[in-house]
């Protein structure tokens, strides 16, 4: 039973990882998300901003709990086609130019086209070998003549990195776009767990868009729902040998529960209590200001929304080999479900300052 759940979660994440959905162009991944949530939610709908809402009704239904995880990924965009047939491109979201050289990419033109981001052979690299190559100096080679390219590719077409997820030792998974498709899987697990639990309040799991370019889907969906309480689910940096003194969260030690101005103190307390009750390890993540997640936009929507943030530890964020521990993902979903089930009937009184 448990094993089946974990296996399903892994398969869902791997599928999500391989699908494409750059900020603003999430329509290509939406059918997969909708199909999966139709199984666990009472109703699934979308809005003009391409946000997807999976609504699971509660026993009382007086209050609305919003969950938010974003489905968009960072990517590239064609900005110029040079006469020799190379595509010049621009970044959509926070792309690290140092990770791009020699990557295989897919250009989403009138059809999907394979390309390679070219690099100079080491034999020809001269004095500037210690400098990172700038994104504006890179070109994508699609192996087609200019005339042919013009029929297939236009300025403004989206480009994504080609990468299938990889399983590492110890239940780790590496791949692209685990930020924040892992959060989408967490919401799915949460809704499934809630079928086994009693919960008073309506839960609306929102798969948000355009987070990577400024929390835009969270802003509009929070306005639309106007929830009474919200939890954002995102990824957070996990420690690696080169992040000493910067990062203290670790992979495999459980979801990170955020604390700080972006977080309602009662929500932090109850998340950590719920974790104790179901014996799920958690890590505390202090955030002194802007959390940079959907929670930041949601908290100040309309007349204010008490907000929490649950994060999945992840290494190598915004690269095509983002790495996480599946156990952290599953635990996050279970924790979230128990947190929701534990909320009192009088939510308003509970969250008042």
């Amino acid at each position: 039973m448990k094993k089946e759940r974990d296996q399903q979660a892994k398969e869902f994440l791997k599928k999500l990882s391989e699908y494409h959905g750059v900020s603003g162009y999430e329509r290509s991944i939406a059918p997969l998300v909708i199909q999966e949530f139709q199984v666990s939610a009472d109703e699934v709908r979308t809005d003009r901003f391409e946000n997807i809402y999976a609504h699971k009704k509660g026993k009382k239904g007086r209050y609305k709990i919003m969950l938010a995880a974003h489905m968009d990924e960072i990517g590239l965009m064609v900005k110029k086609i040079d006469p020799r047939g190379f595509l010049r491109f621009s970044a959509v979201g926070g792309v690290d130019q140092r990770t791009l050289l020699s990557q295989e990419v897919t250009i989403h033109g009138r059809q999907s086209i394979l390309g390679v981001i070219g690099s100079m052979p080491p034999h020809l690299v001269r004095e500037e070998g210690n400098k990172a190559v700038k994104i504006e100096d890179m070109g994508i080679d699609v192996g087609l003549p200019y005339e042919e390219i013009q029929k297939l590719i236009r300025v403004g077409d989206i480009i994504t990195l080609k990468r299938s997820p990889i399983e590492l030792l110890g239940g780790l998974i590496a791949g692209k776009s685990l930020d924040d498709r892992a959060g989408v899987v967490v919401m799915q697990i949460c809704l499934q767990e809630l079928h086994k639990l009693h919960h008073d309040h309506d839960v609306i799991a929102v798969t948000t868009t355009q987070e990577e370019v400024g929390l835009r889907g969270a802003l509009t969906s929070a306005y639309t729902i106007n929830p009474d309480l919200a939890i954002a689910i995102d990824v957070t940096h996990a420690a690696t040998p080169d992040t000493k003194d910067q990062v203290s969260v670790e992979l495999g030690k459980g979801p990170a529960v955020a604390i700080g101005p972006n977080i309602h103190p009662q929500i932090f307390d109850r998340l950590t209590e719920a974790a104790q009750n179901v014996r799920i390890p958690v890590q505390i993540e202090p955030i002194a200001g802007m959390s940079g997640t959907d929670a930041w936009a949601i908290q100040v929507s309309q007349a204010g929304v008490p907000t929490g943030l649950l994060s999945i530890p992840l290494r190598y964020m915004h690269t095509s080999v983002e790495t996480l521990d599946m156990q952290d993902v599953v635990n996050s979903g279970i924790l979230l479900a128990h947190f929701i089930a534990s909320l009192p009937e009088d939510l308003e009184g509970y969250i008042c300052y």
Partner: protein
Amino acid sequence: MSNVQNSLDYSLLERLTQTYAPSGIERAVAEQISEIIRPYCDSLTQDKMGNLIAIRKGSGNGKKIMVAAHMDEIGVMITHIDKNGFLRFTPVGGVHITELPHRRVRFSNGRIGVISQEKLDKPADLKLSKLYIDIGAADQDEAEGMVQIGDSAVFTGEFVWAGSRIISKALDDRIGCFVAIEALKRVQTEHEIAFAFTVQEEVGLRGAQTAAFALEPDVALAVDVTLTGDTPKAHPMDVKLGSGVAIKVFDRSMITPPQVKQWMAETAEKERISYQWEVLEAGGTDSGAIHLTKGGIPAGVLSIPTRFVHSPSEMIDTKDVEAAVELLVALLEGPIPF
């Protein structure tokens, strides 16, 4: 060829560009626009921020479309007047500090000043605190008789023709206002249209934000300038002067929804209007604020390719302007497929 080519009133554009309207003090441009468009709209109001809102009622079967163009321009604001009558200032909007020495500025009362600099050890030392404005005053008293702390000034830059091209200050975004006005004069449609001539775009899309909140349209179109990549060793960009109106795909403030892109391009193709795609890596415009209003509003941008943006010598091509007017009219008159 273009049916609007001969009928566009470029003397109006000249008047608009030469009018004083730094962010926050857009009144003079608002008054000019009001005078011209009053006969063409069903209601004309100004909101609390100063946005000028012109409504054209629809037939009841159409959608509500917002068209936004900003009235404000960049400038400087006085922060200090010294004993000798020299002024210190701060930029209003995206002003390139290093380009300022010996530019002229004009205050609302017509007073002209020239920006100059303290002695610099090396050119790289140039920064805001080294610059001052000389308005020809002999001392502080005389200066204070003409300008006060908090007063704003705009850059001067006359309106001149260069073949089919125009060079002037403040084409950003009087050209957008001009395109909107010309479209408003021509358009016949069943949609309700709200033309918002917005304020404070240059300091953060502020007017568009409150206007969109009040109007709550089904779809919005902004008209603004964009950069080009067709000058010597320019930053790579596909937009060229004279190659048609640019349809925005991406900038820092917005990613145009695919269905809006498609609607705009298909309309242009159907009407045989020349257009180009715009991927802008810096900056944003009113649609950026509008599309995030309330639960989200689908929005697009018609851009006028413009060289030397934010300088006193911005340059546009009238072919692009005509294409923009035609496309805007066609979009407002046709069905909206989403």
